[in-house]
């Protein structure tokens, strides 16, 4: 049995846990804890170590989805989680411009961990105050060759779309590597 993994990262409350929950075939093994600081005004619980979802591809292959903890003080987990990943999704809450700078910093850190393909998921596009993916690209200074995708993390089809786009990007990078 071969295991491969994709990492879902992004700032606190970007929607990483929700994203994995929407597509995982098992109940997400979540290590959420009640929040004990000012972050509680945003949500009651947060991921302190990782979220863990699974998609069985076939009898020989399993895809794991790992969600990184969003709060800065758990960033020591990021490097551990990123080891051996196929690629990663940077989740951004499109309605919270105050998190964009942090999203950019997380992206820079993950790009240093591994030169793997990634996409940016502009989450919460169903909300009226959401910045469009095109505006997010400029705000986060994302290069034009990186996909910035509209996303609603609690919608399975939307999550599928983001994962498939990441996989197409990985395929393209493999083909470029061969050529």
């Amino acid at each position: 049995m071969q295991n491969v993994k994709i990492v879902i990262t992004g700032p606190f409350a970007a929607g990483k846990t929700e994203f994995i929950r929407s597509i995982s075939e098992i109940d997400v093994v979540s290590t959420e804890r009640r929040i004990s600081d000012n972050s509680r005004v945003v949500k009651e619980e947060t991921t302190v170590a990782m979220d863990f979802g699974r998609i069985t591809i076939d009898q020989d292959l399993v895809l794991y989805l790992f969600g990184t903890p969003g709060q800065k003080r758990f960033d020591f987990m990021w490097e551990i989680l990123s080891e051996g990943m196929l690629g990663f999704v940077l989740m951004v809450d499109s309605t919270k411009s105050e998190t964009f700078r942090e999203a950019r910093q997380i992206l820079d850190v993950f790009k240093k961990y591994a030169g793997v393909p990634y996409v940016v998921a502009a989450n919460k596009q169903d909300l009226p105050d959401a910045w469009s993916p095109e505006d997010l690209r400029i705000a986060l200074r994302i290069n034009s060759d990186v996909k910035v995708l509209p996303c609603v993390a609690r919608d399975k089809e939307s999550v599928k779309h983001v994962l498939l786009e990441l996989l197409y990007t990985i395929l393209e990078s493999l083909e470029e590597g061969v050529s």
Partner: protein
Amino acid sequence: MALKGNLRDFSVTQLLNLINLARKTGALTIESDGTTARMYFKEGRLLHASIAGQDDQLTAILQKAGKLTPEQAQIIRTRSQVHTDKELGLLLINAGYLSQDDILSSVKQHVLDVVYYLFPFTDGRFHFEPDQLPPADRITVSLDLESIIMEGSRRIKEWERLQEELPDLDVVLKFADRPRTPLRHINLNVDEWRVISFINGRNTIRQIAQHNGMSEFQIRKIVYGLLSAGLVELVEPAEQRRKAAEAVPAGKPAAPVQPPAVKRNIIMRIIDRIRGI
């Protein structure tokens, strides 16, 4: 799509850059420290800008630009039969008082003054409303944002230096008792003379700026020059109101990890599976 946020997280420079690159049309409102400013854009170009509570009628703009005297402006305000800036502009051109270039260059300078005034703002809400255009009666210009961003960024640096040297505008100016340089040896320009004419030991720098229709940047620059030349002195130091710039945390250095060797057929199998979910 709405664009909302705080200047703490997304600066004026970044906002204008976004509007420029995305070729946006609409109105950007900035609310900061009691100031509400509005800027209008069409396909990424700046059309108009104003600050709530400031007289930005054409008469005031032309007076500020020195194209009308205060007396002429007052006569126009009281006697003119026209009601909109566009009508007034046409009237002044047709009557031969001013050229079209006089009017457009004055409006352009006013719009630039508003935008450059906003550049140093580091805190405050912003909101972009797509497809909103300026009121039809206003005279608009069409300005390239790239050069404004360049100039604004340059001014921020100069602004920061001037703010350090002259943090408070609510301080009274007086002539130096013993000027280091005799006045007759100094060449002052028109704006500097306009400032000098209001120095009486009672007017604050802010009041002098308001009398002359000058932006904070302009008045700081002039007063700083006069102070440096030893011509004027501050009567009493007032409380400084300097906002601490938000420190940007440094990125954590990290050791690169090599990506795994992935075979194409693994990715194809995952794609097929996810498509079928």
